[in-house]
């Protein structure tokens, strides 16, 4: 087994002219090879050393809270339905109607300290924990809420009532799109990787010092 020098949790080995890849996360392994018999061989080998292991085989896997679905040829679909449902159900307030987007145009606007009504400590703790859960979600299956969440993470130290409403807005958006999956396809890996970068300048915090939008 050869370790990928750029990620020590990925192992590769050439077996019968094809690559066997093992990905590792603490004590969870993901093994893949063209020939399923080779995977079985490796599992038997591991069982000899570690005793009985829990094995899940096929095209759909529950891995680290994500549902990885390889069943559509050429596509990888990542869903986190259960996680999303739990978040929506556990939110202490009634969410009401769904929202069409995760954030309103005022996402980056923050009130002056003198005007802002900061959340009581108990609610601030809830805010922090929901933001952290959303961060986990947005880094994996739900990239569409990442902008809103990245703003919320900057506010966890001292959230105000506006931030609470922004958090609620994200959850209301999720409520309307519970079953949205991240769907990835590789066109031709030998050819290219496409990167896009884009930048906007934010409005400075106080209205009176605002120069540019």
């Amino acid at each position: 087994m050869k370790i990928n020098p750029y990620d020590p949790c990925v192992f590769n080995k050439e077996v019968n002219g094809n690559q066997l890849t093992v990905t590792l996360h603490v004590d969870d392994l993901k093994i893949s090879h063209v020939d399923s018999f080779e995977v079985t061989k490796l599992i038997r080998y591991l069982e000899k050393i570690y005793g009985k292991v829990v094995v899940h085989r096929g095209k759909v896997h529950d891995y680290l809270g994500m549902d990885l679905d390889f069943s559509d040829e050429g596509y990888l679909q990542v869903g986190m339905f259960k996680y999303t449902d739990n978040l929506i159900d556990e939110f202490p307030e009634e969410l009401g109607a769904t929202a069409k987007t995760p954030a309103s145009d005022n996402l980056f606007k923050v009130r002056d300290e003198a005007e802002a009504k900061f959340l009581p400590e108990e609610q601030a703790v809830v805010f922090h924990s929901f933001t952290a859960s959303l961060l986990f979600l947005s880094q994996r299956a739900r990239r569409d809420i990442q902008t809103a969440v990245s703003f919320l993470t900057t506010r966890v130290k001292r959230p105000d009532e506006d931030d609470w409403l922004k958090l609620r807005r994200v959850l209301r958006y999720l409520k309307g799109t519970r079953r949205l999956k991240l769907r990835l396809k590789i066109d031709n890996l030998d050819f290219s990787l496409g990167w896009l970068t884009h930048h906007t300048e934010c409005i400075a915090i106080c209205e009176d010092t605002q120069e540019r939008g």
Partner: protein
Amino acid sequence: MRGHTGAGLTLGEGAAITLCMKQKMNTRSSTETEIVGVHDALPTILWSVHFLRAQGFDVKHTILKQDNQSAILLEVNGRSSSSKRTKHIEQRFFYITDQVEKGLVKIEHEYTDKMWIDVMTKPKQGMAFRVDRSKVMGCPIDYTEESI
């Protein structure tokens, strides 16, 4: 004036890696913001190339698309494209120039309205949001769910 960086990697459909972060420093112009942003995203870009190559995939081109022409010129030509508005930019931000010279990354221009990663930098509404979301998530533009 703090900028906000959004970057994304696609291998075909959907964004496999996305970055969305507030910049750590103040900048004077949008060109400088872009250069700082590329600097922020560069470690992930280079890592993804190295990682895939180590996995046995022969990645021939890594194309970085941007919409700011003067930032592209500065990144490709380094200091020689500098003018009095950009000559203050710190040297460390020109690490990208070395990578372009080495051929690891190629920079291309893309029109702003085609930059779907824009959704990582600002809250969008309506159609604009749905179009960008369809590119990031690999879902249909008019994705809706019956109320559950």
